[in-house]
């Protein structure tokens, strides 16, 4: 999905100027970071498990055609219908066609990032099908008419006060008390009969199990099972990289995924879906469809600079620990996936020209790679995009010009030293209490930032002095 054509810088400016957004982001990412840290101290095997998880995903990727075919064979044997989609449009068209075929008036949806990636909410709305988001956060996003800002907590950009107001406007029997408990109860009341009266349910998958043909989802609210059980048709959309060889492999990956996402050891609900209702079953859908989606994944596979990203489990740890994300929130990134992982993925989906700023919105502090449960070298991949953007001439003329000057000066030592000597003097002139908070020509930079005043003399000058003293 594309944002309105507002530049990344403008979006970032707006986010930084929004005082409630920062509070909302801090409340959720701060908790997530603390809980993950505790989970890690209780799981000293994490490093070894992460190495194994990385190898499992690499093994699947190296044998992807084999596992796709094995999964398809077993899914069909279980009674599922398997569909393939090369692009986002193809995928959402398949889902909409299945809904129309089922004469669906009301469709319930379980949160799925792939669903967002292929533009499913929009496609269903366009087709005039009533779409009910059942995940609490997605329900908030739907009421607010905006987009998810985090892959685990899609409505983290909303404060409780904002949520309260939305629920009071939209719910039939809204909460009376101003507590989060009362708001959750209000959503429970509002959504329950919609679960039971939908014609089609749509969900995603955290894993596709090759040797059983099952899909696996992890959730906490219980909305997923309430959503996918009553309707006559259940549709799963999943990226082709979600495969694992067996249920046992899935459990190894689950230990990594959940701890990294929320700091819990396991989610409240881990559910495996395998085919439609079986003989004798008391409930469940008559039809079970799985849509396998490529949408750029095979391009990533063929590209050594992006292949490692196919390991991504979509846990969100990289964004929770990213200093840039924690200042800006998710919407600024403009794509389906925000934060560091989004900065790698969005250029794949939307093109580098549209999204080249994302790779620059990174301090290269390496925190994302450090917390990634499958050790994806995200900074290296981002550097790859920066490199490509430069080579393809996508960097703006001002940046090229500035870097040109820098190259000219930096390769002439005497000129460079003269330049730094002047810069030091000027910067110290504008420093207060050891910090530069504003300086002519640097207004845009110092608006939301400050930097330490430089030392009195440059390193080279001091080095020369100490050499002389020897």
């Amino acid at each position, binding site marked *: 999905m594309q944002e309105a054509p507002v530049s990344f810088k403008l979006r970032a400016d707006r986010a930084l100027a929004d005082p409630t957004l920062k509070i909302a982001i801090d*409340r*959720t990412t*701060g*908790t*997530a970071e603390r809980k993950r840290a505790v989970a890690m101290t*209780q*799981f000293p095997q994490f490093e070894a498990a992460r190495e*194994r998880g990385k190898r499992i995903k690499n*093994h699947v990727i190296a*044998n992807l*055609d084999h596992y*796709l*075919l094995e999964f398809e064979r077993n899914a069909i044997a*279980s009674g599922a219908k398997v569909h393939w989609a090369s692009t986002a449009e*193809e995928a959402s068209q398949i889902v909409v066609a299945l809904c129309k075929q089922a004469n669906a008036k009301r469709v319930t949806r379980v949160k799925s990032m792939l669903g967002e990636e292929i533009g499913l909410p929009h496609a269903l709305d366009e087709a005039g099908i009533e779409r009910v988001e059942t*995940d609490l956060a997605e329900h*908030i996003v739907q009421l607010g008419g905006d987009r998810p800002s985090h892959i685990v907590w899609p*409505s*983290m950009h909303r404060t*409780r006060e904002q*949520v309260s107001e939305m629920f009071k406007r939209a719910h039939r029997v809204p909460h009376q008390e101003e507590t*989060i*408990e009362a708001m*959750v109860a209000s959503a*429970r009341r509002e*959504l*329950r009969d919609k*679960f039971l009266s939908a014609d089609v349910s749509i969900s995603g998958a955290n894993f596709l199990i090759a*040797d*059983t043909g099952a899909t696996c989802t992890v959730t906490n609210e*219980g909305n997923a*099972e*309430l959503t996918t*059980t*009553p309707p006559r048709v259940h549709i799963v959309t999943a990226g*082709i990289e979600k495969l694992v*060889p067996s*249920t*046992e*492999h899935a*459990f*190894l990956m689950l*230990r990594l995924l959940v701890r990294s996402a929320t700091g819990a*050891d*396991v*989610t*409240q*609900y881990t559910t495996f879906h*395998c085919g*439609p*209702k*079986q003989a*004798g*079953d*008391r*409930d469940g859908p008559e039809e079970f469809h799985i849509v396998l989606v*490529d949408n750029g994944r095979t391009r990533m*596979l*063929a590209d050594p600079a992006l*292949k490692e990203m196919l390991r991504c489990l979509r846990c969100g740890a990289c964004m929770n620990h990213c200093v840039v994300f924690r200042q800006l929130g998710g919407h600024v990134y403009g794509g389906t996936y925000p934060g560091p992982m989004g900065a790698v993925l969005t250029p794949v989906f939307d093109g580098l020209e549209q999204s080249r700023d994302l790779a620059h919105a990174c301090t290269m502090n390496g925190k994302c790679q450090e917390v990634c449960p499958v050790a994806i070298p995200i900074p290296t991949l981002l550097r790859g995009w920066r490199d490509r953007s430069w080579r393809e001439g996508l960097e703006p003329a001002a940046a090229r010009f500035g870097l040109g000057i820098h190259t000219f000066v930096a390769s002439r030592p005497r000129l460079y030293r003269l330049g730094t000597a002047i810069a030091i003097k000027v910067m110290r002139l504008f420093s207060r209490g050891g910090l530069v908070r504003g300086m002519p020509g640097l207004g845009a930079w110092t608006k939301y930032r400050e930097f330490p005043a430089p030392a009195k003399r440059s390193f080279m000058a001091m080095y020369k002095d100490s050499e002389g003293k020897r």
Partner: protein
Amino acid sequence: MSARETILNAVRAGLDSRKVDAEAARREADALLQDLDAIRPKLPAGALVDAFIARVTSPKVAATAERIKDITELPAAVRRYLDAHDLPPHVALQPAAVLEDLDWVALETRDGVKPDDVVGIGIARWGIAETGSLVFHSGPETPILANFLPLHHIVMVRERSILAFLDDYAVAVAGQRPPRNVNLITGASGTTDIEGSLVLGAHGPAHLHVVIVENDIHGDIDADKSTPGASS
């Protein structure tokens, strides 16, 4: 060319058109499951059932648990739970013969769970000590909605079907035809979607009570359903 062919061809091109040897892939996948103790958490020393109960009642799972000697004591245990929570004496039973055959004395029971039921009683096939999870397989005696509709979920599990690790469950069912749904349930439903603060009872049950039965139970849930053959 169909999307299927396009995708598979693109995958093969991305993998330098190397032909996958299915047998070699299987060996490699198996090797990745070796030495599990190095990559999973340790269980506390002692009996499995104690580890399971400790886990279920820990803040991480935040459920309650009790042990009974024999399944015939279940109605009394349920009664105690209802009294302690000031709940009316109506319960919905998962339609499993082992539950229906019990003498529920003064309790009003109903077969099957309705959307607004307050208390539902179920039976899990396995418990998992590592995570405090309960495992359900959908089937004639196990409707999936019964696990999600009631506000209070009371679940019975046999002591002998408590497994140590998640992996042990995967091993226990390997090679069998999977049910439509497998639910691993760990605690009551919850959400942290509003400002990251945890609220229980999001869409599913708000309370989970686990009853562990020491003696063996005669009769199994959906006993004859599993047939080998789905795995390849």
